[in-house]
């Protein structure tokens, strides 16, 4: 299967977007090679600003550009964007509801060998808690490219969460991403797997494995975490009666929490969360880390069975 890193798809999409829309400007914080904004830099040097290792200034400057009619895409690693510059994002971007796109790469455990200091596992939680913010976690390269264009077309702050390693391409070119719309990748009656980011393709594998055991699992790609497609969640909860969420993030405050909030209010059914269980990561290869912290097909299968068993309780 072809693999493309979502950061690569982002870099590619930015160049196309920059060609169509001259208001698009790009800012980075000394990581242009890694975030792939270097592609835009090389093509449109006059519309690219390297702010140096200064993430708070990166976000503040983006706010000023947005106030002056530009559509800034500000990029750095997810931990530094949402961590170091959190309060700038809250007070200088989201509160005045400015048109700033924060496209953060190297999110989650799959940062790999750099270790815990560089692995953002709480960025979805904090970005989701900020009013006016739209939070998008694309599942593959195709969805990423479309999300970049959708973000540019959306008026207001957007947080786009991207990853370092290649991930399987699951969508064809005919796929249409829409902000706030979940995509049902696989129908199923007994349990609903709700995933985002790199966990979508792993959830698809889990559904196959469950199928082999005679269990019919649905897979829903929840690429927009905010605003959450509540309709889709409620629908899936009603048709399957048990949900499992899967995300490359702390199980506190992320996709699992967002889904559980909706389910608890509208149609209580068991919701089990697969994700990092409130611990910091460590150095290792992406594959080793996903296995170590239980972000696996096997774990999703196990939780799916447990969720189904709980239905009858």
């Amino acid at each position: 299967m072809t693999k493309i890193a979502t950061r690569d798809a982002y870099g590619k999409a930015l160049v196309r977007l920059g060609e169509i829309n001259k208001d698009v400007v790009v800012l980075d914080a000394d990581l242009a090679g890694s975030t792939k904004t270097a592609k835009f830099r090389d093509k449109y040097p006059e519309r690219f600003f390297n702010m140096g290792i200064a993430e708070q200034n990166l976000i503040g400057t983006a706010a000023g550009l947005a106030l002056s009619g530009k559509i800034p895409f500000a990029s750095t690693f997810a931990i530094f964007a949402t961590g170091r510059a959190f309060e700038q994002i809250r007070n200088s971007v989201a509160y005045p509801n400015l048109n700033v796109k924060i496209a953060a790469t190297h999110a989650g455990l799959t940062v790999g060998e750099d270790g815990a200091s560089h692995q953002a596992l709480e960025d979805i939680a904090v970005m989701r808690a900020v009013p006016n913010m739209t939070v998008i976690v694309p599942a593959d390269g195709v969805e990423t490219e479309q999300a970049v264009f959708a973000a540019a077309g959306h008026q207001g702050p957007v947080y786009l969460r991207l990853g370092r390693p290649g991930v399987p391409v699951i969508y064809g070119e005919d796929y249409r991403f829409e902000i706030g719309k979940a995509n049902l990748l696989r129908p199923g009656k007994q349990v609903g797997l709700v995933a985002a980011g790199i966990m979508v393709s792993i959830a698809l594998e889990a559904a196959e494995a469950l199928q082999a055991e005679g269990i019919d699992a649905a897979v829903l790609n929840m690429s927009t975490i905010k605003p959450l497609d509540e309709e889709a969640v409620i629908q899936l909860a009603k048709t399957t009666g048990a949900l499992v969420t899967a995300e490359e993030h702390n199980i506190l405050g992320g996709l699992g929490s967002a889904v559980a909030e909706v389910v608890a209010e509208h149609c209580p059914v068991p919701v089990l969360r697969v994700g990092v269980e409130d611990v910091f990561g460590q150095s290792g290869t992406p594959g080793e880390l996903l296995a170590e912290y239980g972000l696996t097909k096997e774990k999703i299968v196990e939780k799916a069975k447990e969720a189904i068993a709980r239905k009858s309780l």
Partner: protein
Amino acid sequence: MNAELRQQLEAKAREIRKSIVRMTGAAGSGHPGGSLSAADIVTVLYFHELRLKPEEPDWDGRDRFVLSKGHAAPVLYAALAEKGYFPKEELLTLRKLGSRLQGHPDLKSLPGVEMSTGSLGQGLAVANGMALAGKLDNKDYRVYALLGDGECQEGMVWEAAMAAAHYRLDNLAAFVDHNGLQIDGPVTEVMSPEPLTDKWKAFGWHVLSIDGHDLKQILSAIEEAKKTKGRPTVIIAKTVKGKGVSFMEDQVGWHGVAPKPEQVTQALAELE
């Protein structure tokens, strides 16, 4: 500095450089460039200056060293191993799952690491805190911090610089590893922090400019910092990124890339 001491320190610096090459080579990732540029500073600190008890890492009278540019973890690990904090063989576990030698220093896992770092800009403030506590408790330990020149672009560095001068932290000295490079290019092209000397002066620091590969100059700068009362000292050390390995020297591309096996062999031969 007498000839014997110089030879001793030169030998240590060579060992540390070899360890940096070996461990990043074995890891297949990591940051050799900024580790090698800081090797001589770290050598003088660990093998001449710092009062430490490796057998008692938490000894409360010890001098403190905060590696604010945490990506240079290999240089710190190499010095700690050489000092006897842990077996030298363990260096080859760098960045591997379960290793105490995390990609960026983790104080919880490895004895001798004074602070978990890796997010640039945060170390000097932490060093300030240690220095303030030392004053409060009438302890005579000294605190050292090592910053990158790219790192000096972070606003928090200057918040901490202001605070250290405000509280007259003369028990603190900072080094800036002024190798002129960061990830996306030369620091002056990406976001110039110059004139660095004038900035630190304006923030109330005693400023020394040295050649960061001249052991004698490093040593005398530390001595002068110790004698300077009423304000902190910053030592702006002109260095070469990748120093000691010909093909890495002053090459921006060697910031965060590990040498391949044949490059490890060549680098080790050069360092003999």
